[in-house]
């Protein structure tokens, strides 16, 4: 194995958090920063939405499920012991390539659930620590929305909101009749040409709909069109199809670098002054658990058996309504329309603590409409089908209830030695059960979703929970805290036991909140930049 490559900083993962880490550190241009990415760089001209049969891409190379993509750049995930399947994408830009772009911030209460509700733990940081970084993050990602939301009073500037469309208006009127909170979605979608830096020019959104198979217009703010171009312009190098399989320590217990397998299957070692891990709530514990040494025989940072535990997944409930009128509901960014946090916080009259976001989804696409319409018995086969489809397609709306999932040590990620990836590294096995609190949240959310559709004069055609194929939001598996006995990293994402090892992704979340995870890792990252730089000054540069 060759050992002749050196970098000041090695970042594992080029997704939401890794890309932001790369960019913010690259502002110090004297640093050599290398980002290891197990996936490939995605050619936008190959996105499914460049051809008419784009929906088929969801069942192939652009599926959010590694088991469906069946690609050598993915790793096996056995989620048979979970009611929720893990969704993720490996490639330059990570899962942001396929996300919908919904981008609300965490709320102040999300950091204080123990103080407020007596459950789980408080974070060692709070909203005010991160607020300036939220703003910077939103500037780079280009967030559309509307200032003035009573639930989020601290927004100062946003791009114009994504259009509600006729369906959005119909649902908004129902919210108003019920006197419930709602607001246009916060969306990482450029609703007008957006050019915050010379390196970034993003076209305006054309309201096509299918954001979650990749946006060929670059209107959606995935990090391959936001942070990474800025980082690359500053000299960051991305090694694609290079799978990190072990973080190695020297005899003093300091991270010495990363062993990875390149696209030709050759094992290599890159030395590093600082190692940053940003592989998601699943990939990060996988890498740590696979990094065994005499100091950490059960996996790196895992002497207290915490790595991989406290997995949270944001279980979802889904309710679909069908309107009598053709509202052209499938047009517009699919995942971004409007949202409500009416039931986000704990209330005395509820049989659960914490709560949920109601997330209004636009109508299903043609293939999805036909499949769900048939299996929900709205559509038959044969001669009547076409007329029935006409009354169904573009008439529907969905409400996703995103529940706050309280951490539980039994919910965990562990290595699966019986299923290995193309390089021979073990896959992962997921053990996850919903707790009673989450089940009650979902039940309540479905009841309220039905109530909303009834007021909107829409027929309710389905309502169920949990939705199996929604395990996008993975967090909590390498949790942060002040106490090394109950947490793995400190409030800066720095490992308690290895001073030049940082974790910057959602795996360090203490709790999951009741909305979307994506806007948080990046501000978290900025927060830790100062400590990165301090460490870099303290440690000798590896090639000096």
């Amino acid at each position, binding site marked *: 194995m060759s050992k002749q490559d050196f970098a000041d900083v090695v970042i594992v993962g080029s997704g939401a958090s890794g890309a932001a880490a790369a960019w913010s550190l690259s502002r110090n241009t004297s640093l050599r920063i290398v980002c290891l990415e197990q996936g490939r760089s995605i050619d936008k001209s190959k996105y499914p939405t460049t051809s008419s049969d784009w929906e088929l891409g969801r069942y192939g190379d652009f599926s959010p499920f590694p088991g469906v993509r069946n690609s050598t750049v993915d790793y096996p995930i056995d989620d048979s012991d979970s009611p929720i399947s893990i969704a993720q994408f490996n490639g330059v830009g990570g899962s942001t390539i396929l996300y919908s772009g919904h981008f609300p911030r965490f709320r102040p209460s999300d950091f204080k659930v123990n103080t407020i509700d007596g459950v789980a733990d408080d974070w060692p940081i709070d909203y005010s620590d991160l607020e300036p970084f939220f703003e910077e993050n939103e500037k780079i990602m280009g967030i559309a929305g509307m200032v003035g939301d009573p639930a989020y009073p601290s927004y100062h500037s946003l791009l114009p909101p994504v259009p509600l469309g006729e369906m959005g208006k119909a649902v908004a009127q129902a919210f108003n009749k019920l006197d419930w909170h709602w607001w246009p979605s916060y969306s990482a979608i450029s609703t007008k040409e957006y050019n915050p830096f010379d390196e970034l020019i993003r076209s305006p959104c*054309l309201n096509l709909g299918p954001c979650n198979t990749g946006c060929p217009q670059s209107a959606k703010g995935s990090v391959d069109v936001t942070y990474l171009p800025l980082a690359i312009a500053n000299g960051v190098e991305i090694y694609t199809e290079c799978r990190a399989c072990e973080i190695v320590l020297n005899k003093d217990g300091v991270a010495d670098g990363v062993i990875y397998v390149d696209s030709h299957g050759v094992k290599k070692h890159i030395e590093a002054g600082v190692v940053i891990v940003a592989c998601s709530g699943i990939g990060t514990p996988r890498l740590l658990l696979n990094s065994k040494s005499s100091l950490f025989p059960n996996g790196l940072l895992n002497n207290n058996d915490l790595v991989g535990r406290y997995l949270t997944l944001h279980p979802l409930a889904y309710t679909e309504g069908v309107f009598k009128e053709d509202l052209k509901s499938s047009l517009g960014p699919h995942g971004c329309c409007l949202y409500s946090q009416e039931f986000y916080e704990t209330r005395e009259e509820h049989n659960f603590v914490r709560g949920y976001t109601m997330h209004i989804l636009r109508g299903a696409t043609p*293939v999805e409409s036909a499949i769900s319409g048939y299996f929900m018995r709205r559509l038959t*086969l044969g001669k009547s089908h076409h007329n029935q489809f*006409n009354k169904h397609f573009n008439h529907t709306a969905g409400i996703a209830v995103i529940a706050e999932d309280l951490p539980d040590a039994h919910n965990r990620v562990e290595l699966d030695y019986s299923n290995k990836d193309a390089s021979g590294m073990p896959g992962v096995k997921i053990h996850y059960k919903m707790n009673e609190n989450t089940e009650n949240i979902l039940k309540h959310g479905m009841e309220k979703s039905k109530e909303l559709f009834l007021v909107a004069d829409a027929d309710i055609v389905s309502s169920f929970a949990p939705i199996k194929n929604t395990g996008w939001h993975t967090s909590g598996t390498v949790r942060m805290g002040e106490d090394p006995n109950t947490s793995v990293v400190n409030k800066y994402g720095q490992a308690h036991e290895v001073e030049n090892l940082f974790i910057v992704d959602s795996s360090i979340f203490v709790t999951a909140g009741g909305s979307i995870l994506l806007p948080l890792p990046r501000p978290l990252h900025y927060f830790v930049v100062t400590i990165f730089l301090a460490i870099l000054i303290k440690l000798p540069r590896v090639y000096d």
Partner: protein
Amino acid sequence: MIEQVLHTIHPGDKTLELPSASELDFDSYQENELSKLAFEQFLEVLSLVLREKFKSDFGDLNDKDRMSAINHCKIKDFRAFSNFIEHCFRFYYSDIKVLSVLNVGSVPPFPRGNALSKDNWEILKPVLERGYACAGEKINLIRKQGA
């Protein structure tokens, strides 16, 4: 037989100008190994149903019995049936001839976008007037504390 099966499921509609599935490019669709397998497995189940229940070839049945034979497959092997039906929908509703007729807006590769009606944000007035009262005193207290 597959063309007759596809036509039975999606016969098309002249009034709506929708084509029959049998008029679409099925060969290209089933180049994909997974779809090919799904169609083969379904046809095996259908052949069994035809032998046991109808004692006839699919082509010799009338429209009603053809549909009945297809629906019997659901009872015989639900997994094979549902997998096949999903592929039928994917095949039909991703064909450019069908999408061009449906009210899907701009069709990929998206030479143009879709216009949505302009929003009148007066609709937010009730939300603004009410404020964020829903969260109760506890949250207001936290906000005051700057938590």
